[in-house]
């Protein structure tokens, strides 16, 4: 994510500098060209105002911006995002980002009591409260994941607290958070047995919730069950994971997951609009290995890698909004450029992206998005850190797997040094005890202890082949 934006920025800067220089040279021949070129550059770097694409919610006519702001990676004091860092959120920066987003037409803001290690709702409330209530839609969730929060009292407390934190008296979009994780038992424990779902339906009647929906990851039985109850609950929207990799390959990458095509089609059959999460798969679709990135760049030299994924996610008609967790102004501007104005992907481009997806599937990386829902591991393991490091080496082809490879000794040394640089030794895979507590939190349904064990054995084998 970070790299992409930096490179885009510097790329644009150099283009800009070059064009300005060219313009200056040719100015003596053709007057007026210089200003034209400068305008071109501005159009590439600065998103225009008033060009945002909107979709209409069929149930109540809300005009929702196609780009939604995900408030799960807010910036913190001292740099970085609140998911990695324990620092406090940089509220001034959040206000700036929100102001800029609203100015450019973004009106959907998605948060949760769990985001940013629990700081997101408060921060979102502060930033949005500075704008007229009819200028934005705010979405939050009943994130009662921990069994300690399953009781009606605790869940109710969480629900009421959202109003206080967000400083609102109605919530535009309210979601059952992450249903499917932990299967039907979890759904029953969190929403059915304690009567919370019925309560939320009543709250919608009372107008304190304008739209009721759920976000889905994991066990398809839960998704199917809730849709089968559509006549009873009248879902106003459903939040699903959709991107050009998950459309047809989610199941192929992990047989516990379901293709986005199925999820979207099921919603379309019932006329339920889709809110899209993970359009970038947590950055995996922007941090492509260089040979794939080059393929995208050859088709559209001036488009960022990420913009392809965002255009893809916004293309289906049934999509209400595409969420993106934006930490930096660069993220926001880049995404605004994709949606202001919006160009859907053509059928031919769509096929091209599926070809890229096929290549990614062939790499056999661990499908971790670095979403950090599994964290903190009670035994201190840096789960996403370990997977991201492994995937990076896999993507770059630097995994020392073959002892006959002439570069084996070098790759082995580099792998062992780099894993120690990336992850403190106490947080590495060999310390995973296999308690499986993380597994139910993984939206990608990764068999975390199993993958940890594989990586542990891989590293142990490397170590046994000599010292660094």
């Amino acid at each position: 994510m970070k790299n992409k934006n930096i490179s885009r920025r510097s790329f644009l800067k150099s283009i800009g500098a070059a064009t300005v220089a060219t313009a200056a040279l040719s100015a003596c021949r053709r007057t007026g060209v210089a200003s034209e070129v400068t305008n071109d550059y501005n159009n590439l770097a600065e998103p225009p105002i008033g060009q945002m694409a909107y979709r209409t919610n069929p149930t109540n006519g809300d005009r929702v911006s196609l780009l939604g702001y995900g408030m799960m990676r807010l910036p913190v004091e001292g740099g970085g995002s609140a998911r990695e860092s324990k620092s406090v959120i940089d509220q001034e920066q959040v206000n700036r980002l929100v102001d800029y987003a609203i100015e450019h037409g973004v009106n959907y803001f998605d948060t949760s009591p769990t985001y940013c290690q629990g700081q997101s709702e408060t921060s979102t409330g502060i930033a949005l409260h500075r704008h007229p209530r009819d200028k934005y839609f705010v979405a939050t969730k009943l994130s009662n994941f921990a069994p300690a929060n399953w009781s009606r009292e605790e869940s109710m407390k969480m629900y009421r607290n959202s109003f206080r934190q967000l400083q609102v008296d109605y919530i535009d979009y309210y979601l059952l958070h992450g249903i499917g994780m932990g299967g039907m038992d979890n759904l029953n424990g969190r929403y059915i047995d304690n009567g919370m779902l019925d309560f939320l339906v009543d709250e919608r009647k009372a107008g304190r919730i304008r739209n009721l929906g759920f976000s889905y990851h994991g066990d398809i039985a839960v998704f199917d069950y809730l849709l089968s109850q559509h006549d009873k609950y009248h879902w106003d929207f459903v939040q699903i994971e959709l991107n050009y990799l998950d459309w047809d390959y989610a199941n192929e990458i992990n047989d516990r997951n379901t293709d986005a095509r199925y999820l979207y089609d099921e919603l379309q059959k019932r006329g339920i609009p889709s809110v899209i999460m993970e359009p970038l798969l947590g950055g995996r679709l922007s941090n492509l290995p260089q040979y794939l990135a080059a393929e995208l760049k050859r088709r559209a030299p001036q488009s960022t890698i990420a913009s392809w994924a965002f255009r893809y996610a916004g293309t289906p008609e049934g999509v209400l909004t595409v969420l993106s967790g934006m930490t930096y102004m660069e993220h926001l501007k880049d995404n605004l450029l994709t949606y202001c104005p919006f160009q859907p992907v053509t059928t031919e481009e769509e096929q091209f992206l599926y070809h890229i997806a096929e290549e990614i599937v062939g790499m056999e990386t661990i499908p971790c998005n670095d979403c950090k829902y599994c964290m903190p591991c009670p035994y201190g393991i840096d789960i996403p850190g370990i997977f991201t490091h492994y995937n990076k080496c896999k993507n770059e082809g630097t995994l020392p797997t073959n002892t006959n490879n002439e570069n084996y000794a070098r790759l082995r040394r580099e792998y062992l040094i780099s894993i120690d640089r990336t992850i403190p030794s106490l947080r590495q895979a060999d310390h995973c005890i296999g308690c499986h507590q993380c597994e139910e939190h993984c939206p990608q349904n990764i068999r975390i202890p199993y993958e940890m064990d594989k990586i542990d054995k891989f590293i142990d084998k490397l170590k046994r082949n000599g010292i660094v």
Partner: protein
Amino acid sequence: MLRKIRIPLAVIFYVGVTLLFLDYTGAVHHWLGWMAKIQFLPAVSALNVLVIIGLVLLTFVFGRVYCSIICPLGITQDIIARLNPKKNRYTYSKAKNWLRYTVWGVFAVTIVLGIGSLTALLDPYGAFGRIASNLLQPVWMWLGNLLAGIAEHYGSYAFYSKEVWLKSLPTFIVAVVTLVAIAVLAWRNGRTYCNTICPVGTTLGFISRISLFKIRFDESKCKNCSMCTTNCKASCIDYKTHSVDHSRCVACGDCVAKCKFGALRYSFAPCSKKADAKVDESKRAFLTASAMVAATAMAQETKKVDGGLAPLLDRSVPERKTPITPPGSLSARNMARHCTGCQLCVSGCPNKVLRPSTDLTTMMQPVMSYEKGYCRPECTHCSEVCPTGAIRKIDAVEKSSLQIGRAVWVAANCVVLTDDVSCGNCARHCPTQAIEMVHANPNNEASPMVPSINENRCIGCGACENLCPARPFSAIYVEGYEEHHSY
């Protein structure tokens, strides 16, 4: 001439031995490991007959050049003495025989009785090793870590960083005190330590009295200018009587270079009458030295929110009833008898397992503990570097069945019982499959799975202890064996 040969050789040995202690990558040992093995006391301790004979012969032919070239502590003193700007400051003094023979006697007794910590304290090579590994290696590692930081910035893998930690406070203090004492003595009087305390110096002194090459006076050329005496760091030249105490002379050649009249020569000559008178004593001394070697030989037989990292408590050291000594050390007794506490194994241990003992009788000798790592199956580094025979050379195959201790399970700490989770990390990582997960209650199939240790297969490597999730105390820890054995 002597000086011109001595200084370059001394520099080579000094840099080489120092590098052995600084290096934490295991690369240097392959090339320079022999420099530790030719040190006198380690060779005696290891009963390395060839080296002992070689050093005895070397001294018999050339005098105590060992002290001027090979011994790193001797060269350390030369360096410190040289830093003192005051020239011509030494004076002749009589040999303090009562002191050096007493120390030598005590030293011999400690060896015979196997009081390792005292032996180690007196060994010059061991003393240098402690100074280098406790005071110089951290600086070296910090530099390395700095380079690793720079390398990381540029995406290079040329350097990697390594944790710098205080392995034992008492040993660190011993190193500091030794350095300060040596420095003060050297600054003021040159080689005082070598000629009053050092048991190796005293031993070699017995031989150097009768060495073939030695510093000789040509009385006819001497103008009694005193330059030889005031530049003798061993304080062994008396210009008034034209005599040199060869038991204390370290054959540095400074006097030869300082004498403007050519009255001093380092030369080969048959024994003069005067030397004859001393032969008996020398013979006796030589026999005593040999007896010491023999005595040593005999002694040796024997609401969940997403993100963030859970804080981790530091590991505490369990109280082991029997300390664990590294594989290859045969037994606690063998370790105590042979080790001179030089820290070569400690400073090179790549798994952060070895540290100097803090126990009074085995002070500074290596013991194992598994808070920061465990004794990995592929590593036999300490057994390769040890110059004293305290840790005998073993290979990875021998190590795989060498039992240095056994794991003990502490139910009260086990997360399976305290946190109600499934674990088994100890069993998964046991290199000998000595740990089997069994039902906590044999009569209840539904009871949680806890580790059981087959003591006949456990080798005491500490993988289980190190990787146990229970903190600060592991739920499984290793008790050492006094005698190692194989299964």
